[in-house]
């Protein structure tokens, strides 16, 4: 058992090195893909499942509210997820969208539609 210890460590290090290399390559590939997408002019079609891929969360929320208003936070999350908005795996969409909505409210682009602050709509004042 004691003899196998260094072998296990070696295997773990080798696997970790391999995974790190794969991760690094996938990051480079992702960056290349993004550059290629950014090379195209125009917008992604509004009915595409990736329509919010190039948008910030705030921009995607404003786009959604232009067509459907007012919306609750869960409705916004559903719409953004169906449009391929990038949220990552560490923070939840609930946290991200709520923070983005608060930032939009702070600059006056959207406002709460009810006193319970459960729904948001585009701000009436410019």
């Amino acid at each position, binding site marked *: 058992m004691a003899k196998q210890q260094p072998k296990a460590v070696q295997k773990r290090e080798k696997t970790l090195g391999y995974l790190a290399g794969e991760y690094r390559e996938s990051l480079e590939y992702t*960056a290349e893909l993004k550059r290629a997408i950014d090379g195209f002019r125009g917008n992604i079609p509004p009915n595409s499942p990736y329509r919010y891929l190039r948008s910030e969360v*705030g*921009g995607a929320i*404003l786009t959604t509210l232009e067509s459907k208003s007012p919306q609750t936070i869960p409705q916004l999350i559903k719409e953004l997820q169906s449009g391929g908005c990038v949220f*990552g*795996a560490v923070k939840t969409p609930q946290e991200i969208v709520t923070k983005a909505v608060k*930032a939009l409210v702070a600059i006056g*682009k959207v406002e709460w539609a009810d006193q319970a602050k459960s729904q948001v709509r585009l701000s009436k004042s410019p």
Partner: protein
Amino acid sequence: MVFKQISVTSIAEVIHNVQQVEFPTDHFISSQEIVELKRKIKQNCDVMIAYAQHVLPVAAKGSYHEAILRQLRQDVMLVRAECGKVNANFAGAKHRSKLTQLHAAYEEMRLAAVLVCQGAEPELIDSLAVAL
């Protein structure tokens, strides 16, 4: 004393310069752990402020991007304020609650950083969230 000015111009540089912060879950926390935790948090705050200060002047006025950068700066200030309340002579429930408040403020800052990253370089969201 010489003050070193940090220059951080991209999310990749932010990830390179920050240190991973883990809040202790044990009931007993040594003074050394508190000092180390505060050092890392202050270092991360400096990096986030440096990045926000670099990007803010070129952000469009009144835009969502500017709003979220200002929010990040505000959250960093709050973390610094909460960090100052936690001292190394750590004992008792009162200090424990201060550490909890610092943790909550730090999570808000991390969330604001994730939002900034989502707009600038979405492929690095998870890397940044883990690095912080």
